[in-house]
């Protein structure tokens, strides 16, 4: 399986269906920001998200939203900090900051954070 770095360099696309986000990689999530909600609880009991991992993709259900389009507008992004599985989680150099833009036909664009986007870990 390709590494998270390789996947991100290939400008991958994911999918979204209502409040379900499908990302074409796996990782250890540290922080997710949707709208003005800062989510840091990814335990099974989390009231914010429910995450399931499949062989080569990850499903994230945002429990507080009926539809991601209601929360994330044209110029906004869902922001995430995550670490590739197997890498040292305690090394900040391994923390990847990514932004996810909702596009047409249920697709999402996944990019590493641009310098101009404000995103505080």
């Amino acid at each position, binding site marked *: 399986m390709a590494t998270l770095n390789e996947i991100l360099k290939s400008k991958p696309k994911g999918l979204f269906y209502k409040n379900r986000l499908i990302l074409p990689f796996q990782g250890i999530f540290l922080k997710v920001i949707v709208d003005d909600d800062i989510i840091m609880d990814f335990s099974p009991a989390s009231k914010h998200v429910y995450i399931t991992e499949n062989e080569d993709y990850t499903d994230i259900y945002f429990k507080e939203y009926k539809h991601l389009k209601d929360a994330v*507008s044209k110029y906004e992004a869902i922001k995430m900090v995550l670490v590739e599985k197997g890498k040292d989680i305690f090394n900040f150099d391994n923390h990847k900051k990514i932004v996810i833009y909702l596009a047409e036909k249920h697709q999402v664009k996944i990019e590493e954070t641009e310098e101009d*986007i404000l*995103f505080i870990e």
Partner: protein
Amino acid sequence: MAIILGLVTVVYYLIFLNEYHSLLHIFAEYISFIALLSSLFVASGGIFIKVDKKATPYMNVLFLLFGAVISNVIGTTGASMLLIRPYIKMNQNRIKAYHVIFFIFIVSNIGGALTPIGDPPLFIGFLRGVPFFWVLENVWFIWIPMIMLILGVFFLFDKFNDKGNDTPVQNGYTGKVEFKGFRNLGYLAVIIFSVFLDPGVFSWVPDWSPLPFGIREVIMFAVVYLSYKQADPEILRSNEFDFEPIKEVAYLFIGIFLTMVPALQLIAEEARVNRDLLNAGTFYWATGGLSSFLDNTPTYLNFLSAAMGKYTLDVNVKAHVLDFVSQDIIYLRAISVAAVFFGSMTYIGNGPNFMVKSICERAGIEMPSFFTYMIKYSIPILIPLFLIIYFLFFH
């Protein structure tokens, strides 16, 4: 919830009191309020400022001082929206909630106490007849020590936080300052000019009453549309522009505006009855206390009305306001200072407070809750400073 509470007040006034004048009046003030806030919000959302320098406590103090001064030129809302993003960016490796809270104190509120453009209550005073430069001439010697004191407290916080902060930055700092979106600067100028387009200021401006808006509001809403349509999508994306923060303010403040109608009428009545007992200190604390939780513009107007009542003058007559200004300065000074300064006590004390909070949360900064903001920051930091101002100038 805010709208439901507002509707309860509307129903009570319309059905039980059969009184609609107060509601119409407050609705017109709400339209003016939201027109100004939304136009400044959208126009500044199309401007991108990047200060690629490492923030130090000294630099942050200078930045906040600049914000305080500029808020008198483009308003506390305009200054907050323009400067909050570069401020976060500068401090990205060490930002804490207190950075944002002091920004709210200084740039979103206290800084704007020197001109009628700075904060809406002062503008309402200007429309009623208070000379444009009256605030500058009569408040500067309070503004300077207040700003110095609060910057001093911030410096101590920031210096303490800076200790041991030698984390290297991944790409270093270029030291450059970048500015994009000059067209929207023009729109900001249009908004500031249109603020003066009032029949009370220029006789040639058409009076559209009983409509709850005038040409000023039409221009401001046109700026909302045009500045958004013509903005560079790259800038909007960099600023992660979204209408949600201004929508939140619009919903919240419609509730505040409507529910404060009976509260302010009660205060005005009490002030009239007890006018001989009222002194500058009473006006300072009463205006401040209410400006912390209600909108400061009608609070200012009601206490101005009560203060003028002591001289049997009417706030609705421009000549009376001028007469009042020449007769007694200290009441108006106390009301002006308190209305602006105390807006920083809560997230709902002034429009930009909530917008700044929302922008910061979207950037990933955890902000304190409504009560934590008060208990941890505004009460222990601001109340002692407001007490100093009280003992120095209004005791």
